[in-house]
């Protein structure tokens, strides 16, 4: 089993976008651990697939499959759920949009990651840049600043600022199944990178 925990303490950074798209790309079981929003489960209902919605860490641990890939969409808080997922996961992905508040929230997450690594030393943690506009100077500068200040490496693949993402979500789809070539290519690159990371 390879478990990917998608976590971020700040809301609106793109946890569900990353989790739903990766679940399609990796053919993974998606678990929604973000009550009471249950966005990923709602996406699953539109898609017509069963996305288990768990409301506590014990339920989450029971739901993690023994084989294959699983992606868990975590709540934006220090909950037992986040701790349990980080203790179990192979990869933790932290979506960030190019805003300083997202990076501050990552800093708040660092102590719990350090604690989790004590019980789960193989945990690999990566930032995922989301809604990135590579041509905006201030956003490029923020990426440089994050690389300098945060002890977490970013994934090489990043997601751009595209309407294709919310559109795909509403339709219960992944951008991998859509017609926006740029969105499809960047998500495919992200899936491939995560697969490599999971096998490493």
């Amino acid at each position: 089993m390879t478990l990917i925990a998608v976590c971020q303490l700040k809301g609106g950074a793109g946890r569900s976008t990353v989790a739903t798209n990766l679940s399609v790309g990796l053919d993974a079981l998606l678990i929604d651990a973000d009550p009471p929003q249950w966005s990923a489960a709602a996406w699953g209902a539109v898609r017509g697939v069963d996305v288990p919605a768990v409301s506590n860490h014990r339920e989450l641990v029971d739901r993690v499959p023994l084989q294959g890939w699983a992606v868990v969409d975590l709540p934006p808080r220090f909950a037992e759920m986040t701790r349990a997922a980080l203790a179990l996961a192979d990869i933790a992905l932290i979506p960030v949009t190019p805003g300083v508040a997202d990076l501050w929230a990552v800093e708040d997450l660092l102590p719990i990651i350090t604690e989790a690594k004590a019980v789960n030393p193989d945990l690999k943690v990566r930032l995922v840049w989301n809604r990135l506009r590579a041509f905006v100077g201030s956003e490029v500068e923020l990426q440089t600043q994050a690389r300098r200040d945060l002890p977490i490496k970013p994934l090489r693949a990043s997601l751009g600022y595209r309407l294709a993402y919310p559109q795909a979500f509403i339709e219960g789809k992944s951008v991998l199944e859509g017609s926006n070539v740029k969105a499809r290519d960047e998500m495919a690159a992200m899936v491939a990178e995560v697969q490599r990371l999971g096998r490493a």
Partner: protein
Amino acid sequence: MATKKATTTKKPMSKAAQAVKFAEGEPKGRQPPRGVVRLTVNINAGLHRKFKLAAVSRGQTMGAMLEDWIRDNLADKAVRDARAYLKEKGQF
């Protein structure tokens, strides 16, 4: 030659059980460390609030403040006297 089976005194734990343990942290109702006892007292609610606010404003725990107060206000002589009194009464 028979090989000796490796043994460990540490109880093996599954990754799932370890995750639950990590998530829940220390068990509730944890005993105080060695050499420390738990004190339970009933005091006036308003005083308790003041005490709590004072501890927060000083960046101390209520327990630490109480210990400081006891050290500052109960001279060793008073403690020795009390011990002698209780010994005399056969209660120490």
